[in-house]
């Protein structure tokens, strides 16, 4: 199974004609509440973000570090449901003209019914999904449904993924590849150095898909480092940190510094 062309990939390619490095950000839906989530998306899009991950909160976010972890559990404490996440996501995709993906854990799909979940993604204009605890081997139904709906299943490359497995992952992906630039969970520091350069070359060689690079991107400097090495810079935990430190209104200026 080789990857298929998706709307997501097409949008990325189109955007790249204007910019050499796109910016993807991440929020947790319902954190600190759904209204604020919407406001943050608005600000991000206005600040020039190119695509966004919308995380549907889950009680056991095993691959997430402390910042996103806390956002997940606060959202759930606030009563966030999957239904509300879909509703908000639908408003978002209608309102803003950039690609949005869902990021969540497999149980959310599984309990909704995988096919139903994917179909609904399609219906509300979500263009792809990142499901960090669903390796392709466990995700046949998911992959088929995504393909059927021409949505992008995004998989993850890591520094200890062998080249052969990168190719396998790429074959099972669409839209882009999410390449994590360090070991560990989300939100930890990464030193952007030559070693990473080599790693990214290895990633490039393993896939034809655009390459998003994430984990630990925090500053314009980090973003600039990625220029020429990646297609998309991902800023995840740091925006949540900014929001927590400076309030929702702090997010826009922060993003603006990154894309400046």
């Amino acid at each position, binding site marked *: 199974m080789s990857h298929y062309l998706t709307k997501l990939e097409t949008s990325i390619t189109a955007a790249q004609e204007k910019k050499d490095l796109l910016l993807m950000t991440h929020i947790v839906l319902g954190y600190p509440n759904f209204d604020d989530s919407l406001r943050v998306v608005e600000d991000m899009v206005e600040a020039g973000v190119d695509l966004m991950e919308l995380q549907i909160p889950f009680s056991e976010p095993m691959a997430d570090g*402390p910042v996103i972890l806390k956002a997940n559990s606060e959202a759930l404490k606030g009563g966030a449901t999957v239904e509300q996440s879909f509703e908000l996501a639908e408003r978002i995709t209608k309102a803003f003209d950039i690609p949005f993906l869902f990021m969540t854990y497999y*149980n959310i799909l599984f*309990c909704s019914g995988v096919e139903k979940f994917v179909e609904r993604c399609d219906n509300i204009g979500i263009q792809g999904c990142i499901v960090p605890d669903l390796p392709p*081997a466990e995700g046949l139904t998911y992959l088929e449904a995504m393909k059927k709906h021409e949505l992008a299943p995004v998989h993850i*490359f890591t520094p*200890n993924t062998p080249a052969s497995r990168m190719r396998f992952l790429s074959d099972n992906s669409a839209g882009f590849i999410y390449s994590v630039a360090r*070991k*560990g969970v989300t939100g*930890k520091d990464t030193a952007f150095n030559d070693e990473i350069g080599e790693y990214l070359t290895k990633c490039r060689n393993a896939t034809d898909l655009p390459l998003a690079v994430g984990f630990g991107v925090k500053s314009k400097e980090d973003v600039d480092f990625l220029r020429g090495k990646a297609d998309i810079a991902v800023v995840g935990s740091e925006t949540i940190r900014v929001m927590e430190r400076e309030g929702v209104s702090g997010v826009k200026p922060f993003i603006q510094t990154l894309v400046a």
Partner: protein
Amino acid sequence: MRNTGYYSQFGGAFIPEILVPTFDELETAYLQAKDDPAFWAEYLELMSTYSCRATPITRLDNLSEELGGASIYVKREDLNHTGAHKVNNVMGQGLLTKRMGKTRVIAETGAGQHGVATATMAAKFGFDCTIYMGAHDVARQRPNVFWMEQMGAEVIAVTEGSQTLKDAINEAFRDWVTNMDNTHYALGTACGPHPFPEMVSWFQSVIGTEARAQMLERTGKLPSKVYACVGGGSNAMGLFSGFMDDDGVELVGVEAGGRGRGTGQHAARLAYDDATIGVAQGYKTFFLQDRDGQMQDTHSVSAGLDYVGVSPILSHLHETKRVRFEAANDNEVVAAMQTTVRREGLIPALESSHAFAQAYLEAPKLSKDDNILINMSGRADKDIFTVADAIEDPKWREFIINKAKGYQQGINQ
């Protein structure tokens, strides 16, 4: 595409991509060890010199007579070094860790039993050791934390989520995804991603293998029913595996009924109807979760059974009806513990007391010719804080209050 580690629809390995090579390495090491008779021999040698395997079976002479039905036998995992069956699994994983050339182990722990066992193994093997434990549990289970620290382990209080066992598991995975190069995660029960359920069950199978031979030797026949409590499912899998092919032996798994059916305050995933199939913590099984798939709070008087998921192998055996699942509620469990202490001089852990409670219910219905076997997965003497609270002993409270006064006045009294 690899698709191993399934027991009908349950199991699998739902793991972050970064751990895939680590799991491949682990599975390979495990399969090689399993194929290598020298490994199992080394394991048995270790368990018979460092712990006291074979653990005996004890007949409950007084209660068998009083209850008036079957003869009740008990498999004495409480006599193990560190006081529970957990050490069987941990020592096996210790040997594997050495094989894989790793120098650090991490583990989750709820009540602290698995944490103590892992810290012990790390001390013995000379590994660095970090134990993740929900902050609530750290506060409640200081004695176990104390011993883990004495063993040289670092105990990290997990302040995320519900601050209990499942959160400790998540946190251990978070450590692992960072430190997989030198670190092995010694998961404590027959849950989690493949190969853990199978591998932990394999190490624990020493219980069932011994018990079957011992029952035959002692009574000349197999028991009619065998009982084990079910938290994650490792002691149950360990015992049951010895009798899996003996059709005449009924296997009974006893879960934490907590405050009872319908209260929402329990940890009965298979005995009650509240759990549904889901995927979390790396594997597919029955979970106590809401309709969205969010894990729910559970409750049990015994921290070791207070867990949202259950071994995928047991979910499978539940569906095939090879194992019958029951739940004992908190009150029944405390009563069964007290009866066992008073009439037989055995102190079953609150976890194990679930199995005793169910066996005591059923023994009178059997005939004098029947034998039943209960897995005493651990001893309760280390859980005195919990037990004393469960039975609300006023003298204990007084003792603690006086002790605290002494400390506040700066006296070790």
